[in-house]
Each structure stands twice: as structure tokens, then as C-alpha cells.
């Protein structure tokens, strides 16, 4: 497994736990899959962001916590939280 990908998954898990005020052990990894996104903001732009309109490859990282599912999107250079309470967030870039 790509160590960068592992690192991003761990970072996403920590981020979600902090947002939900849970411990990382309370966050369950549901799966990581290769994905193609519509643009270089991985289809998860923050408000006001613009990005190159080129299809980009990356990973979709899914978690379950507190009875809900959450999705992070990542590639080699960035990690984003998709549609968390209606908003996207850049976690790392």
C-alpha cells in the first residue's frame, strides 16, 4: 500500500474524530478506493475556490461514526472532507 495513502487515511481519521469529538477508536474505516474526480479540487471545492477543470485521479476514503457515514477525498498532495454538514473542507494540501 502506498505509504502516502496510509498517512492520509490516518490523518483523515484523526480529523473526523476531532470534529465529532470522538476518539479515533470510535471512527470505523469503511473502505478506501481509487477514484476519479471532476477537477483538481477533487470535486470538493471550498466556498470560492476555483480549480483546473481536468479529471484527476485520487482516493475516496469512507468512515462510519455515530451511525453516520463520512467521505474524505485525497490524492498525492491534498486531503479534503466532502460535504460535512453541507460544506467541503481542505484538511491538508
Amino acid at each position, binding site marked *: 500500500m502506498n505509504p502516502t495513502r496510509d498517512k492520509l487515511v490516518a490523518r483523515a481519521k484523526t480529523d473526523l474524530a476531532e470534529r465529532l469529538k470522538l476518539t479515533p477508536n470510535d471512527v470505523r474505516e469503511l473502505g478506501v478506493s481509487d477514484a476519479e474526480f*471532476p*477537477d*483538481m*479540487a*477533487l*470535486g470538493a*471545492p*471550498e*466556498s*470560492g*475556490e*476555483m*480549480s*483546473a*477543470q*481536468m*479529471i*484527476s*485521479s*485520487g482516493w475516496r476514503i469512507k468512515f462510519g461514526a455515530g451511525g453516520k457515514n463520512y467521505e474524505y477525498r485525497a*490524492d*498525492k*498532495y*491534498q486531503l479534503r472532507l466532502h460535504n460535512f454538514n453541507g460544506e467541503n473542507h*481542505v484538511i491538508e*494540501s
Partner: protein
Amino acid sequence: MNRNNIWIHVAIAVVLITLAGVLGQISRWKTSLNGPRVELSRQSVDHLEIETWDLQGEAPEVLVRFKSGVTLNEIRRLTAEKNDNLSDEIESVAGLTVIDDLDNADAQIVANQYSSMTDTVEYAEINYQIKLDDPVQKSVFQVRLGRREPSAGMPNDPMFADQWALNNSGANGGKERADLDALEAWTHTKGSDEVVVAVLDSGVDFTHVDLIENMWVRPANVPAYSDDELGTFNDINGYNGTDAIRDPMDDNGHGTHCAGIIGAEGDNAIGVTGINQKVRIMPLKFLGRGGYGSTNDAIEAINYAIDRKKNGVNVRIISASWGSTSRSKALEDTIRAAADADILFVAAAGNDGSDNDRRAHYPSNYDLPNVISVAALDRGDQLASFSNYGLKTVHVAAPGKDILSTWLNNGYREASGTSMATPYVSGVAALIIASDPNITMKNLRARILGASDDLEGLKGKVQTEGRICAANSLGNIVKEHSHE
């Protein structure tokens, strides 16, 4: 001096030289963090705020357009009263300014404060950061040298057979002649080095072996670009809105790909050819290496292109392969100023597979006389599954899937997106200008849209219901109606 002493002296010399090198590098880093642009635009901002913006991507600026009649002195007084700093004026749009808040207040709050000044302010908005990342490369080819026997007007570029957008043979599941009719168009013109196309993007690798001959270089009789607030730019090879002292070298790849579509040198026995075999590409870099940029930097870059036009550079087209669903009045006003300068603005429709009539995408959705919004087609002449569309707001389609073009480090790769369709339209526009140098922007836009090939699959999807056609645009052949 004995032999041992010699070695001690040599060791000391090596240490001193190394130390000098390290100190020099530190000095260069310091210079890059406090370069002329930052110093000039943020004279009274302390270095911590500069680092916050540069390194963490914060947006401490707002874009404010003051009403007609509000003088520069009044603007300075108004901003000073708020402990703000007039960072820059956008010369091409009257009253449009960039303002730094020196109190580190939330940008939206600052924008709201200015918006409430209805006596003097037309509008105020956040200077949003624009972000992209280095994309994963699917396929990078090294430069292939070698000559293939040219036939039937085909250029001798070794990868030409893979450029289905220019000449679709029907291979790889494609549809024969589902292309721009480049071969027919080239019987009329292959482009002109008198036509300048600005690529507003992540920069361009202007040293790429397949681009270098078609890159714009500021002529000796055109003065270096100078801005009252930002200082003088190093614009020999184009404009770098992210760093005034650096050239617009691409450190992402996306801009280089778009540039190759418009104008990789043709018939040079290297790599690919652009739809223009000969042209002048002007890089306007507003996205940084990590993909960071801002609305303001895009505006400044457009302002630069307008200024160059006024200084005699024949920049006629701005190609914009980026966007979002966020609307900026300041960006809209600047693109309008480009229209006033007779510059065509070609914009990507977006890749969400959605209807832009219902969910707007910018800048492609700005209802301006110089904007062409572009959807993407696959090699079977079908609207690409990812492409946005819109009967009212998307004007035309162009090839945008599995497009081979130039990449960083003398490389090549395939990429997909309305990002790739956009430069084909920009490129066809450049071909038209090459054959009709005095055509107006309005007539140029009408020529491109009026010469499209109708496609059944685009009915109800894009305004012209067609794919651009280089040959039709040059008047070589009658308009095809493939659905008839």
C-alpha cells in the same frame, strides 16, 4: 608548512565555502519570502501576516469596487480610517481595488463593512484563494524524435496519429471524422506568429522542446510591465501573478498541456502538434506550484493582458481552463474590460456532468459579449459523461477526452476535461485571426459559433448544438449536418 597543516587548511576552506553557500541559500529564501511584490503591496504588513497568506493559503484581502467619482485620495482616506491598506488598483476596471485588512479580521466581515458603504462602494467581495494540486500523471511519454513520411498534408509530428481531435481515423473506438477537420483547415492556414494567445493557468513550460519556438517573448519595443502598487514585473516570458520577480514557468503541468493543444510546434518531427502549428503563446500564471492562487491574481493577469494589448501586443484571446460555482463581480468586470479591449475569453464549462442553466459555473456563465463557454466531447462525438452542458449558458463543444498534449520535463500525456476542450476553441480562434487579422472579437466569436458542425447528441445540450470545426471556421467547406 607541513602536510598535516595543509589538510587542516583545506578542511577549514571547505567548511567556510559550505557555510557561505548555506547562508546564501538562506538569503535567497528570505528574499523570496520578502520579494519586491510582497514588499510593495504590503508595505505596512508585518512578516507574520505575509507568511500566513503565502504558506497557509489565507485570504487577507478583499476586492472592492468604488463608485464612479470616488477619487484615489478618498479611497486611501476611507481605507486608512479602517486601518486597511490600498494594496492595488485594477487599472482596466474603473474603481476596482484590492484592499488588505491590517487587523486580521475575517475577510467576509471586511467585505460586508465595505458593502455597507453604499454611498461610495458599488460592491465588495472576498478575494478567494483558488486551489488545485499536481495531478496524478496517467501516462507521460518522453520526447520521441524521428521522422515519419508525411502523407496527405499530415504533419510529421510522431504522435500525430494519437491526436484524434485533429484527425480522427476511427481508431480506438473513435468515430471517423469526429474531429476539428484540422487537415482541411491547414490547407488554408497553419497559424501565424503574429497572433498571441494568452493561457491563463498554472504557467507554461516555455522551455519545452515542442513549445519553445511558439512562445511569446516580450518584444524589445514593449516596456516591461509596471504597476503603481506592485512594481515592475519580470515579464520577458509572460506574467507571473504569484511572484512578480519570477518568470511564468509552469510547476503543475496543466497550463503546459493547454498550451500544447493551442500551439505545440507543428511539423517539426517532435511529439505533437497544436491546432496552430505556428502561433505565439503568452503564459499568464496565476496558480502556484501547489495549486494556490486567487481571484485577485486571475484579475491581475487579465489586467496584464489588456495592458499589453494597449501597448501594441496582438493578444486577441484569453484561454481559461478553470472555474468554480463561485461568482465574483470583480472578475466579471475585468473580463468585461477584456471585451472592451476586443479580447475573446474562452472558458471551460466544468466537469460535474451538470446543467449550467440550473447550477451556474464561472467564469463560463458570465453573460458577456466575449465569453465562449465550452463543453467536452469524446472521440465518438458524444458529449463526455463528465461534461457540463446548458442550452442557454454553454455555447459549443470541442474534443476534451483522452487528449494528448505537452507536459512538464519535455513530456507528453493524455488528459480529460473541459480544460482540454477550451484550448481547442482558443486555438481555432487563433487560426481564424491568422487568416483574417482584422476580424473583430464580436465577429470572431460569431464565426466560431456559426461554423460548428451540428451533432444530434448536442441537441438541447449546448446553444449551437454543435462541435467547433476549424475548416468551417476558415470557410473551407460547407457546414456539415451529421444528423441529416
